């Protein structure tokens, strides 16, 4: 019986080597309900690789990821269910409408009532009026909303978002923040990679600076962003 002692996600000692490059050199992460970790760091630090390992798309060279106590591995597709991952790309099919794309995902996840789940997601992201359109005809901002709808459709408890605020205007960003906040209040946890810490500062409970494949700094988010910036600089160059 896998034990999780309250942890939604537990990643221990993650290493990842690509050819001759050590992209991750021992990363730890633990998420409990309500946790929101903002991950920042220079380009090439390994942020996207970390997210993909947590999502189960990439196998770590060493270390493991446990989701609600279950190891993430090839032979256990069910372990992936609580994860919602938003990569840079939309993962939408050009030849299907937004609605058809979402219904497909609902069926893949075996949701009890695909039509209802899709309707709810479209309403939450305010996409109902464009649901019959193909992804190609959507603006970048709307496409990002469609991608979010797809990622969150199955009500995941663990949200892994790679730069979700890209392409969103101020109103869109506000809507996203309140969406995420309500999910966090409902017991979900979230890891959010961003280049603009200001966008995620208020939402975050912790902030992690990833550099050279490991945490240069991983602290509770407290105080104001302006006070954090020097600590961040120090961590990178210290």
């Amino acid at each position, binding site marked *: 019986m896998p034990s999780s002692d309250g942890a939604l996600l537990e990643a221990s000692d993650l290493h990842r080597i*690509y050819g*001759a490059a050590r992209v991750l050199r021992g990363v730890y992460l633990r998420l409990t309900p309500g946790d929101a970790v903002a991950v920042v760091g220079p380009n090439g630090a390994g942020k996207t690789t970390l997210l993909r390992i947590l999502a189960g798309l990439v196998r770590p060279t060493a270390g493991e990821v446990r989701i609600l106590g279950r190891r993430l591995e090839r032979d256990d597709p069910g372990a992936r269910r609580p994860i919602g991952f938003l990569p840079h790309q939309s993962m939408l099919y050009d030849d299907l409408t937004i609605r058809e794309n979402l219904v497909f995902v609902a069926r893949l996840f075996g949701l009890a009532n695909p039509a209802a789940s899709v309707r709810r997601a479209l309403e939450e992201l305010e996409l109902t009026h464009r649901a019959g359109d193909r992804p190609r005809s959507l603006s970048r901002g709307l496409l990002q909303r469609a991608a979010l709808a797809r990622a969150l459709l199955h009500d995941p408890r663990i949200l892994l978002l790679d730069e979700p605020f890209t392409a969103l205007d101020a109103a869109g960003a506000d809507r996203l923040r309140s969406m995420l906040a309500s999910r966090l209040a409902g017991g979900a946890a979230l890891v959010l990679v961003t280049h603009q810490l200001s966008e995620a500062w208020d939402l975050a409970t912790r902030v992690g600076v990833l550099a050279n494949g490991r945490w240069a700094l991983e602290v509770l988010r407290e105080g104001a962003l302006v006070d954090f910036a020097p600590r961040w600089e120090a961590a990178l160059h210290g």
Partner: protein
Amino acid sequence: MTEPRDNGLDRARTLSRRGLGISVVALAAFAGVCVLALGFTPVEARQGLAQKIFYLHVPAAWSSLLAFSIVGIVSILYLWLRDRRLDLFAESSAEVGVMFSVVMLTTGPIWAKPIWGTWWTWDARLTLTLFVFFLFVGYLALRAAIHDPDERARFSAVLGIMGLVLVPFIHLSVYLFRTLHPQPIVLKPSAPSLPWEMLRTLLASVVTFTLLYIGLVTTRYGLALGRRARETPDAA
């Protein structure tokens, strides 16, 4: 921190050297087999002197099939154990194997033409070696086309296993074809009714080629390990 790296490189060098040693011994043995075949083995009545190439032909075919089977088996092991060295070993076996099959495919027609009056027949041995050659070429082409080492190892292993499973079907197909279309009777070199002197020479040649295979693969594998040790300084 630097210790594992030095050990790896040293081990690789030793392996290459040992492999070269075995190969040299095998080549010397091969020279001996040639002498044996030309000087101490009776000439075959119907086919004459040209038949002697059979002592080169059959073992080369055997070696390429051996090389291919090993690629297949090591591929299964790789997908199970995921040890990158297994992938390097399979690659070495494939490179040596493709060489042996080229030898077989060039000597085959040279032998067939004067004896059977035709460059090629679709008999079991030639057909199998031809397809093993195609599979090797596909294997090496796929490896050349994939840049990520992990992906390359995985894909090669899948191809190696699929190829291994294909081989029995080639056998079955040739067998079925032969039972339905009886071929003109030609010398069946693999029949046990060979006189002792010929059998002895054939066996000696097979052993020599197997030794050559072992030597060449060991050398190649040692080289691959060495390159890997040099390219990944802080990985085991």
